[in-house]
């Protein structure tokens, strides 16, 4: 890694962090609780849509998708499709009524719809779990990015992001976050689109001859013990004797144990697992797997590709509406119609963005195939410009990508920390601005501890787990709560526990290992099983407890579905919870309709 590239990148990352804080201070004047939590519900659709997209495009989108395209080929494209289609599901079934419900958080919705405080508690716990599940890969991605561009240890990036986010959220609150997020959408788009265009022009201008000189890059060393699953057969070249552990077929013989490679070429068959120790040399790939047919064709990976694809897309499709940070952003729309307009713009912005990670993944196959051996395909976007273009242009573009990646971690983490802290401060603490700050520190530091302790997964895949949990808990609650009169608090709670519990529990056996492939496939992508289970539980238990249907259900549904201009919608009084005496009179001063509140049980 050339020193100038390192300093470029560190400079770019610093600029992003600084801009985040500076743009954030635009909203610093806002000091009421309402401003702090929901930007006083007065953000226009276009600004809000950019903010929603900016918050939504996480490390999984910015780094993960190109990495998965490099690794899995066309099957990886289901991730961006699912991430985007999730907003369509949200628009069709949830967006406008949810905004009119006046719920700021998912626990708010649970309480407003079903009038049950203990159901609210369950929802609170689930929000915190989902938020943290989503935060951990963001912080790990930050660690990976900084380690890739500078060689710092992994924990540095994770710590830097969580400190910046925590400070920024503490000082600015929601108003400033809106501007930060909108700014970061455009930054992320630029940081990916410009290098992709430059590389495409470069590719068109150069011929195949210059491409084959890629093998001339300096030898690399594994920075940590690395395990590589070879999905398509490759021929590797080592220049020095290398010791490794292999399981599978190497050089035409089946192996299961330690192996000593002499300098020269070695054939590794597909399905082989190679484990290299730290500080051994990274073998070079002589036959690029890029030309392999299976990479270009869909449904070529895993034991049950069709099930995995469907289950993944289902989880992403229905999980989006249950993500806590997404809902908070929707609440800053002024009314239901504006929420629909915002969602439409979000779909356009996401579709535009996702063109670029796809192309970047294709280019990565040409320029950085060695990542397939190291297994750090998530770093593909970061290394691509520097590998493809020599000289200052490649370094500059590499720095731009690094800055964009940092914007991705900062924006998504900010949104998650805001929403987790919002829930914690109103439901576990008295709900004053000071409590929000305490909650922010807690919400930001616990996932940091997990990120440092847990081993790294694929970014997109671990984010996929957060989606699966959201899809099997909050999606049924929202959809049934909005469209079905018969939902009861007991039914909703049972569904949340069954769906959320099953999907969270699915992580544990995968980590242990040693299961039949069919069971493993279900556990790896649980949504196809857990989402129907959650829906069925909610409906069946609600039918058994029909006498608990809230007496004012018709009035609540009227509020959710009546057009905005009739004025039935009602905003949550942000400071209602707890004691918060200082902020309450401000909120009461005439902006809120009163009197349609559900009776508490």
């Amino acid at each position, binding site marked *: 890694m050339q020193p100038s590239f390192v300093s470029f990148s560190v400079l770019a990352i610093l600029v992003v962090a600084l801009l985040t804080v500076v743009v954030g201070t635009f909203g610093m004047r*806002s000091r009421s609780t309402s401003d702090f939590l929901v930007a006083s519900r007065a953000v226009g659709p276009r600004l809000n849509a950019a903010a929603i997209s900016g918050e939504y495009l996480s490390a999984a989108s910015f780094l993960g998708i190109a990495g998965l395209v490099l690794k899995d080929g066309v099957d990886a494209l289901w991730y961006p499709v699912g991430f985007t*289609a999730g907003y369509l599901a949200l628009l069709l079934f949830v967006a406008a009524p949810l905004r009119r419900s006046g719920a700021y958080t998912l626990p708010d919705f649970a309480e407003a719809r079903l009038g049950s405080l203990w159901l609210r508690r369950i929802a609170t716990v689930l929000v915190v779990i989902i938020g943290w599940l989503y935060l951990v890969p963001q912080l790990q991605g930050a660690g990976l990015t900084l380690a890739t561009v500078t060689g710092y240890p992994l924990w540095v990036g994770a710590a830097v992001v969580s400190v910046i986010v925590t400070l920024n959220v503490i000082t600015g609150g929601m108003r400033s976050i809106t501007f930060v997020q909108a700014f970061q959408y455009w930054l992320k788009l630029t940081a990916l689109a410009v290098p992709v265009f430059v590389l495409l022009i470069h590719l068109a201008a150069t011929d195949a001859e210059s491409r084959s000189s890629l093998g001339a890059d300096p030898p690399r060393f594994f920075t940590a013990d690395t395990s590589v699953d070879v999905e398509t057969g490759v021929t590797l070249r080592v220049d020095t004797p290398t010791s490794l552990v292999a399981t599978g077929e190497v050089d035409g013989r089946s192996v299961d144990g330690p192996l000593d490679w002499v300098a020269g070429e070695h054939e590794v068959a597909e399905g082989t697992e190679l484990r290299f120790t730290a500080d051994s040399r990274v073998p070079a790939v002589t036959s690029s797997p890029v030309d392999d047919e299976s990479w*270009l064709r869909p449904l070529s990976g895993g034991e049950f590709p069709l099930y995995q694809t469907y289950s993944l897309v289902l989880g992403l499709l229905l999980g989006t509406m249950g993500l806590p940070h997404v809902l908070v952003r929707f609440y800053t729309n002024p009314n239901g119609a504006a929420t629909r307009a915002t969602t*439409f713009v979000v779909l356009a912005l996401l579709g535009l963005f996702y063109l670029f990670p796809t192309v970047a993944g294709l280019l990565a196959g040409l320029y950085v195939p060695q990542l397939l051996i190291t297994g750090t395909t998530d770093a593909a976007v970061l290394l691509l410009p520097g590998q493809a273009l020599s000289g200052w242009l490649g370094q500059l573009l590499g720095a731009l990508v690094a800055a964009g990646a940092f914007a991705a971690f900062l924006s998504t983490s900010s949104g998650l920390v805001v929403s987790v802290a919002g829930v914690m401060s109103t439901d576990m603490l008295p709900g004053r601005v000071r409590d929000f700050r305490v909650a922010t520190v807690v919400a930001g530091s616990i996932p940091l501890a997990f990120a440092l302790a847990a081993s790294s997964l694929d970014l997109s895949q671990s984010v996929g787990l957060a989606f699966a949990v959201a899809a099997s808990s909050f999606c049924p609650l929202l959809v049934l709560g909005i469209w079905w009169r018969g939902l009861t608090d007991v039914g909703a709670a049972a569904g949340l526990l069954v769906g959320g519990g099953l999907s969270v529990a699915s992580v544990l056996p995968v980590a242990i290992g040693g299961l039949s492939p069919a069971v493993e496939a279900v556990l790896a992508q649980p949504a196809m099983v857990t989402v129907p289970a959650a829906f069925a539980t909610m409906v069946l238990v609600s039918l058994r407890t029909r006498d608990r249907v809230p007496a004012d259900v*018709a*009035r609540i549904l009227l509020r959710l579905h009546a*057009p905005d201009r009739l004025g039935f919608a009602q905003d949550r009084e942000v400071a209602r919870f707890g004691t918060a005496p200082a902020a309450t009179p401000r909120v009461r001063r005439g902006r809120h309709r009163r009197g349609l509140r559900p009776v508490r049980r």
Partner: protein
Amino acid sequence: MSSETAADPWASAQAAAQAAMTPQPGRGKRVRVVLAERRRTRRVVRTLADVEEQTAQGEELMRRLMRDQLSLAIRLGGLTVVVLGSLPLAFALVPSLGGVDVLGLRLPWLLLGVAVYPFLLAVAWSYNRNAERYEQEFAEMAEN
């Protein structure tokens, strides 16, 4: 501070009233003082009250709106699921589809990488248009 005045309609009303009473040199026109947003001055007539008070007629109106909205969402959602859901199945049943070239791109890449997004956008646009129309009809029925 703008958020302060926005939060307090009295302050802005007083300011406006004061501005109206103070004779302005060169501008003798009367100033209209708006005390509240339009939404709060809505006409509360019989049908709207029916809706609010959950009478049989209002209840029926509300149920119809919800049914219309839900069936619209299910129709468009179903269309999306069928279109997207048929892709993996088609690729699995007819593997040769994966090898078709269109405009220099493999068909699966073109469909999943590019064509999906305009499709999703078109569905969203159609939903917004129809959902707004149903609400318009409901509001007109409720207000006349």
